[in-house]
């Protein structure tokens, strides 16, 4: 039998824990998906329906790139919203393009009992063992959390590093070392050592720096290429960047009940997808007196569009500026930069006058 070489589309830096899950848990070779680039987007848009949301196109493009990098087994997860239906269309398009791969669509077993779900998972590798997965899963989840924690720290400090590139260098080493981790202890030590390194990086942070919170739709917020490297741009302007949305806070520990309670004044009923978290975070950033909020989403994302009237009310009620970005496949670089700079000028002026 041909060796199983599996993959899942790139999202931020999460291919590292996924690699651990696939190799040690599912017992297959893992193809690290190529980073998201212009080419990914071009490929994805060429074969996608026009007005489907951008993450669909990125995923499709990245699937094609991973096939070209050697993958023969592709996994698409279920999820809420349109994501739930991505897999079936991805599979159809890839098939129509003539790619012969094993496409494992987890949507087929979504909302079923654990056994059916496991059987669905087995389509990746019929020989996989529950024991192996059970053994590695806690380490995989912890790795997601550590990556998120490290990146939270980076976002808040990278804008103030004394030596340009210091954080990026340590970050890359951290991710590289994580790839070799197999045991809980190793993971913990690696994390601890690197956090020390991160904290030891020399920074020059003013006492009351500009603070901006980022909120919005799942994919666009987490995949830096798709949001024009917004966080990097902000950091270069000398801003503390805060973002709650990540895998830890949504997939691993999602505080649905608390969120619903906190946003009661603005939303009486529960919503789907990330929109509740979007509202909740906006409130939190507003209450904490941040200087501004940036909302990002891909074009046509219904849940996030519906969150916007509420964000506008929060902006009025708490007098906090919110900048809205919609990304599609043709978002222009200059338009993006102009709006971001105007926003920066505004929040810095507001801060000055407040003093």
């Amino acid at each position, binding site marked *: 039998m041909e060796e199983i070489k599996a993959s899942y589309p790139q999202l931020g830096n999460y291919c590292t824990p996924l690699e651990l899950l696939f190799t040690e848990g599912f017992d297959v070779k893992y193809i690290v998906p190529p980073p998201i680039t212009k080419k990914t987007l071009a490929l994805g848009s060429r074969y996608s329906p026009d007005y489907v949301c951008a993450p669909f196109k990125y995923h499709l493009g990245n699937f094609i790139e991973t096939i070209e990098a050697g993958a023969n087994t592709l996994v698409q997860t279920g999820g809420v919203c349109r994501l739930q239906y991505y897999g079936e269309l991805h599979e159809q398009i890839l098939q129509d393009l003539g790619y012969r791969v094993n496409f494992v669509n987890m949507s087929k077993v979504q909302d079923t009992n654990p056994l059916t779900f496991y059987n669905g998972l087995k389509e990746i590798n019929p020989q996989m063992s529950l024991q192996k997965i059970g053994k590695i899963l806690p380490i995989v989840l912890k790795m997601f959390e550590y990556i998120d924690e490290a990146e939270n720290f980076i976002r808040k400090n990278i804008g103030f590093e004394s030596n340009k590139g210091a954080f990026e260098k340590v970050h890359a080493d951290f991710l590289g070392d994580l790839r070799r981790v197999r045991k809980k202890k190793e993971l913990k030590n690696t994390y601890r050592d690197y956090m020390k390194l991160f904290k030891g990086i020399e920074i020059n942070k003013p006492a009351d720096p500009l603070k901006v919170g980022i909120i919005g739709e799942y994919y666009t917020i987490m995949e830096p290429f798709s949001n024009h490297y917004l966080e990097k741009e902000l950091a270069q302007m000398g801003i503390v960047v805060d973002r709650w949305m990540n895998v830890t806070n949504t997939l691993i520990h999602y505080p649905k009940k608390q969120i619903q309670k906190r946003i009661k004044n603005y939303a009486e009923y529960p919503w*789907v997808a990330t929109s509740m978290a979007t509202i909740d975070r906006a409130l939190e950033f507003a209450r904490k007196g941040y200087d501004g909020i940036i909302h990002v989403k891909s074009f046509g994302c219904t849940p996030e569009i519906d969150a916007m009237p509420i964000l506008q*009310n929060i902006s009025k009620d708490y007098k906090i500026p919110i900048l809205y970005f919609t990304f599609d496949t043709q978002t222009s670089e200059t338009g993006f930069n102009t709006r971001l700079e105007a926003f920066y000028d505004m929040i810095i002026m507001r801060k000055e006058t407040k003093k």
Partner: protein
Amino acid sequence: MIIGIPRALLYHKYKHLWKSFFKELGIDYILSPDTNKEILRKGSAYSIDESCLSSKIYLGHVEWLLDKCDYILIPRFSDYSRNGTVCPKFLAIYDVVANIFRDRSINLLSYSINPKVTHVEMAAFLKLGKILNKKKSQSLYAYLNAKQVEKKAHLLEITEQERLLQENKLKILVLAHRYNIFDKYIGEPILNILREQETVPIIGDIAPQKEAIANYAQISETLPWVCNRELVGSIPIYKDRVDGIILMSAFPCGPDSLVNEILIRRIKDKPILNLMIDGQEGKAGMETRLESFIDIIRFKKDEQNGRN
């Protein structure tokens, strides 16, 4: 007390139920008028630009009702049910309306469909009756009665459609959300053009619901949304009796963006037209598009007849 009912979105599905329920309980209601240019213009002005056309129209209707009634009826559906999920729009629309019009002292009346309760709809209507200060027995009677009216109306639609299917003309299956195809401003003009062109539009959404729901997976296994399941499930029911299919969607409808693509890739034996409506198209342009599609259908049909 007067209840305002926006003539948009779910109105088109539940109009018989709502109207009979309120009538039976002796509660006055007022309907917003048919969608027109002004309603769309106002609705768009209140909407986030990227919202789907259907929801922009909805906001226009809500706006029209604002100073003309005491409460506006906005039902709310949960994120899943036995038959599938709903477009996220329906989960949010209540709160969206409340937030957009919060400075205009709007009062909303809602019933919430919660799939965890048995007899979900009935429970919701009994609750609604309670809010309206009606006795439980009264509300129950009104609901059951309204259900009968609704059922009769649906049966009538189905019979009428079966009759249309017998007509000796070109028949075109129109797959569109009910609130789009039956909207006087964005949907009806399409039906009129089709009729003027000597064809018979067959409405996918009229298909018997249970049968449609039992069918959809033949075409698309993991399709999540109830509305689209019903539409896709109507294809096996009607396909052999129609000559072409039109997929009409409101720009930029989320579910339809994927479902239409699946249909175009999977249904190979009938001509398909993908018709995206943004509310700006003129009559002439629409006529040309539909005419050329009908020409293709005629051509294919003649070709087939020639072969047989």
